[in-house]
């Protein structure tokens, strides 16, 4: 509960997302708008699922703790499903908007490719999800207190930060893969993304047994990263070009 914990956890949780924002999104106003709209869509999905959870808790006995915990799990599963539904809705909106923008813009073709939009939308979802999970915890870490006073884990802050980072990156990768799947009309991709999201949520149910939750989540994140890389047009050829610093003949958009 010191400034060190605060800054450390803040940088772990938000560092990569913040750098991605600064280096790839901040300069282009259109991308900023898509990012914020993505955050908004995630927020609306959270709002609707909280409404459902709230009604469920108010309709039942508040003293029954196991029931409340189960309701929480149910609410979260509903939230995960709703997030993916809203991701799809955002995809549809962006496609329509892109066509509209292409029609009125002076340059040939749409101003943003679907892949760029996928990345930005995924990052928007991720940033908002991470912020909502972590900000209150971070703010508490600045104040006085004892971590794990009642036998809870000592590592609450750092594991929260690590999970938040994983979720942010996962949302970005899911965005890329999801939009690509929708573009290619591969509907099984949507089902897989939904299942992986539910799997990640289920793994987080194992907290505070952190070895069983954080390690698999990071493994899934790496797998998703590889999938997203290949799905957005990357290849081993690109990587060798990157490492040997050679320019390719054809410009590939990423």
């Amino acid at each position: 509960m010191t400034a060190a914990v605060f800054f450390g956890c803040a940088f772990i949780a938000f560092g990569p997302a913040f750098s991605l924002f600064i280096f790839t999104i901040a300069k282009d106003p259109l991308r900023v708008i898509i990012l914020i709209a993505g955050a908004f869509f995630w927020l609306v999905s959270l709002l609707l699922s909280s409404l459902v959870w709230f009604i469920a808790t108010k309709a039942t006995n508040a003293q029954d703790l196991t029931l409340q915990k189960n309701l929480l799990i149910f609410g979260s599963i509903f939230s995960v499903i709703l997030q993916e539904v809203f991701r799809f809705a955002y995809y549809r909106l962006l496609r329509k908007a892109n066509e509209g923008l292409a029609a009125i813009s002076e340059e040939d073709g749409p101003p943003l490719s679907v892949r760029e939009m996928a990345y930005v939308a995924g990052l928007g979802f991720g940033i908002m999800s991470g912020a909502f999970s972590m900000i209150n915890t971070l703010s508490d870490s600045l104040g006085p207190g004892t971590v794990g006073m009642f036998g809870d884990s000592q590592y609450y802050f750092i594991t929260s930060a690590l999970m938040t980072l994983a979720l942010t990156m996962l949302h970005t990768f899911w965005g890329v893969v999801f939009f690509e799947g929708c573009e290619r009309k591969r509907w099984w991709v949507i089902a897989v993304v939904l299942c992986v999201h539910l799997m990640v949520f289920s793994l987080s149910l194992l907290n505070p047994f952190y070895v069983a939750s954080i390690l698999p989540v990071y493994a899934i994140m790496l797998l998703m990263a590889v999938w997203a890389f290949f799905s957005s047009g990357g290849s081993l050829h690109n990587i060798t070009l990157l490492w040997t610093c050679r320019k390719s003949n054809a410009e590939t958009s990423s």
Partner: protein
Amino acid sequence: MLFVPVTLCMVVVVATIKSVSFYTEKNGQQLIYTPFTEDTDTVGERLLNSVLNTIIMISVIVVMTIFLVVLYKYRCYKFIHGWLILSSLMMLFWFSFMYLGEVFKTYNLAMDYPTVAMIIWNFGVVGMICIHWKGPLQLQQAYLIAISALMALVFIKYLPEWSAWVILGAISVYDLVAVLCPKGPLRMLVETAQERNEPIFPALIYSSAMIWMVGMANPARHAEPTNQDTGTFCLISAYNPLALTMLRGVKLGLGDFIFYSVLVGKAAATGGDWNTTLACFVAILIGLCLTLLLLAIFKKALPALPISITFGLVFYFSTDNLVRPFMDNLAAHQFYI
């Protein structure tokens, strides 16, 4: 492009609210425009008082706006300029002196009067020059943001709880009416300015408690091809929530900044939950996006308050009551959705 100044203003207000406790302390003092107290016995009375406060405040605003339009129509420019200069003097010197004092008190910094006099004098004079005469664009923008933030803080401190929310709602409605109705004062203002071919809103003001600043960027800048990033960010009339496009720039009234910041500031002040503040922030930015989109479609002066404030209010109340317990429970168990 408008995101940066709006975000900056909101960040300044939220940072101040969270650190300087002066602006959240209620000591029973209220503005004369909200005379009814909210320290009542029943909920019904409190609601009634807040509605009455709102009615008074909005009437004052309506009267002042009409007065302003009348002055403008009859070309009483000197009066308007004088009023404007007096208001900006008050903001730049008195309110910033108070703000500085409270910041020093919060951080327990010792300071002597001559130093403070020097600081405030410099700050104020440079501000007056930048806003009313000429100055580097970014400095002018910074001063206008600072003034909007100061004004928002004053509102957050002196408006009673429920009255503030009702006023926010009522003012969006008024804005909608004033800008879009054919006989609305703000619409008449825009049309008169356009007829006379004058730079839009040359320093209009609304001054009730001598606030609301207005300023205009150097008109010559509009003709230069400006970088998309800096944009022709020109702040116009205080309480007027107008959004106008000019070349590559978009203008937003200072009143919009103020009310957006009041909403986010109140979200930060009550409850202490950062999720609510963040949700209101995102909602307001999305409202602003939608307003700009409508602007691009309709190409005429539009009110910038209604959509953002509506989203902001909806998200404030729903996040505070629905999302907050949900996220708190999830964080307690460390579930990540």
